[in-house]
């Protein structure tokens, strides 16, 4: 009814004529072109987030359909705040995020610097370095699980042959070592992705800046801290934000390697959410935990933006 009313008015008719006749103002054209993208995001990003928010205020248990969908206010959040296992998994996720993002950044920057200095074969090396990133994390997790296997794993075998160890190390059966093993796999997987973004940033730095730095007598280290790092700031921010958000949502790699074990030593927050939602079928509580994860992720992204965004 409303739409028809608009069409019947003179303004509505004129607008339609202009759209059909291609006589749009720049702003209208922009809005029209953005519409598909906006609809896509609304359907696949905004709606799920609000749906999760709505579900988080209800009880929804698939294994007890007779309970229905009653509104419980903030009770699920109260339960999460009192849940020691939830806090434990948040702690695991934060440690995992700090360790893996720092390691991925360091290694990624090193790879980027090396590739940037290469004269020949740069394209080939760049493509090859990206291979780990192209492997599905669950597949990579299975692969690393075998590499770290205590009985038949390659890593134990190599260490034994090198005379480093006399006994088999039970990598995935001890809390600290399992955490270490998962972070190694995560670093291996994403360092190259980090390198690619940083390399793009490095290639945008004009060679003249380095020449003038060396004319001024700056050491290579000084040139790195005074020229490279400041000009790389945007690339660093993008890579850190992307990898941090990825690490906060880490599910697939720990799921495939340790399933959160031993005990719950490597149970990330995303794994904990998965377990509550799909193993225990407690969708209301799962939604609550997901909302908390969104808040944590936003806090991280906001902090990065504040600290690293260009101030000029």
């Amino acid at each position, binding site marked *: 009814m409303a739409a028809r009313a608009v069409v019947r008015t003179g303004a509505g008719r004129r607008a339609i004529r202009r759209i059909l006749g291609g006589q749009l103002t720049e702003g209208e054209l922009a809005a029209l072109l953005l519409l598909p993208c906006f609809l896509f995001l609304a359907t696949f990003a905004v709606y799920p987030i609000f749906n999760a928010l709505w579900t988080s205020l209800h009880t929804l248990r698939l294994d007890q359909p007779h309970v229905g969908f009653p509104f419980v206010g903030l009770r699920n959040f109260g339960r999460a705040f009192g849940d020691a296992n939830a806090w434990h998994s948040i702690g695991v996720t934060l440690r995992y995020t700090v360790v893996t993002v720092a390691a991925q950044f360091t290694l990624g920057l090193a790879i980027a610097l090396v590739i940037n200095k290469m004269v020949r074969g740069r394209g080939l090396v760049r493509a090859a370095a990206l291979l780990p990133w192209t492997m599905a994390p669950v597949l990579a997790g299975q692969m690393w699980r075998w590499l770290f296997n205590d009985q038949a794993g390659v890593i134990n075998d190599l260490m034994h042959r090198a005379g480093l160890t006399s006994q088999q190390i039970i990598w995935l059966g001890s809390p600290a070592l399992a955490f270490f093993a998962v972070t190694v796999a995560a670093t291996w997987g994403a360092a190259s992705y980090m390198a690619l973004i940083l390399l793009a940033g490095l290639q945008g730095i004009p060679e003249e800046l380095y020449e003038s730095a060396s004319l001024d007598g700056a050491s290579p280290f000084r040139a790195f801290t005074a020229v490279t790092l400041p000009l790389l700031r945007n690339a660093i921010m993008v890579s850190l934000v992307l990898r941090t958000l990825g690490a906060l949502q880490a599910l697939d790699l720990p799921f495939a390697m340790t399933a959160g074990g031993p005990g719950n030593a490597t149970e990330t927050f995303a794994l904990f959410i998965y377990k509550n939602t799909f193993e225990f*079928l407690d969708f209301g509580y799962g939604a609550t935990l997901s909302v908390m994860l969104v808040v944590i992720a936003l806090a991280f992204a906001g902090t990065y933006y504040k600290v690293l965004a260009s101030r000029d």
Partner: protein
Amino acid sequence: MKLRLLAIVAVIAVGLAVVPASAQAPVTITWNTLATGGPIVADLYRALAAQFERQNPGHKVNVAIQPGTSGEQYARYVTLFAAKDTSVDVISIDVIWPATMVAAGWLAPLDQWFVRERRAEYLPGAVAANTIGGKVYGVPWYTDAGLLYYRKDLLEKHGAKVPTTWDELIATSQRIVTAERDPALAGFLFQGARIEALACFFFEILWGNGGDVLDRAGKVTLDDGKGLAALNLMLDFVRRHRITPAGVSTLPTDDTRVAFQDGRYVFLRNWTYAYAMFQSEGSKVAGKVGIAPLPRGSAGSATTLGGWQLAVSAFSRNKEASWRFVEFLTGRVSQKSMALQLSTVPTRNDIFEDEQVKRQAPHYPDMLKAVLGARPRPQTAEYPRLSSIVQTNLHAALTGLIPPEEAITRMSREIRSLLGQ
């Protein structure tokens, strides 16, 4: 022109004639199942499905074998049924799932076909596990329990008796391993990964001590001292007596079967399915494996009731045809083939009396002795979460993350809060 019209009419006529025929197109039934034990098991399942197709013209069975542990299988079913997926008709389910799956509305009731007289042909305990709120939702397919497997050859060589207490098992393990001087040989293996079988082994020791997770009234009694004693025994196998390697904490069910089959252990706790694998061609322990009930605690020997059922999905579009396939798989012919070839324990009374089974499977009396007294796991609709709490804390203690006292305290506290006590 006329000719063309005639041709069109002819085509339409033929088309109409074909329609009723296509309505009787073969009914395809999709069966999702694990095949723990590998190709021997999967091959038999496919052969049975082919036999069903031959006996029931117009029926096709799509056997979808799934990898992994029963916990992973459960997660797959949840994903499938939460989305009301209609692509699966018949599913095999673990004995601990019916309560939760029925509450969620995922299983079709079978009462109209699986009537009282038919139910009487099956072991009563197994039928009871599939009966929820007065309706029956699954047909017992094979039953199961935790057993003690031992190396007959090694025990005979060293003049050792089959252990009947845990102390005897520890002493015998140490004696044989020391005397054999084989660095690849160790004493005892159980399922130490964070999976359902880890919780089951803990329950078995606990029940053997006269303890339990919940008492008759459903109150948590895990922290009355017997829970701690049971956990300490599990840890002692590894730390004090060193008959179990510390790497046990990474081994799920079939990995322990493979390790024992490779000749690396004197004793193993595992389910009944392992026996057929041990006796199969190419096995290093063929003809050398004995079966006994699990060793006693202060209150006797105890084992977990396991076993698998066949059920029909509530979302299936071919429920009647699905039932016929379930009926066939749980029937006399299929259960007999499975008993003879896979050493699974049948759920039909008549198979135990079958002359050929008695002749070809002389280990059945031993297996039956162990299986018939099996106990069900704590009976609550919250079992999946309860089991997860037990598994996580046991595993944390087994891997040294927390001391055993704390593991039991946490387990009890978390189960109490789960059950609202």
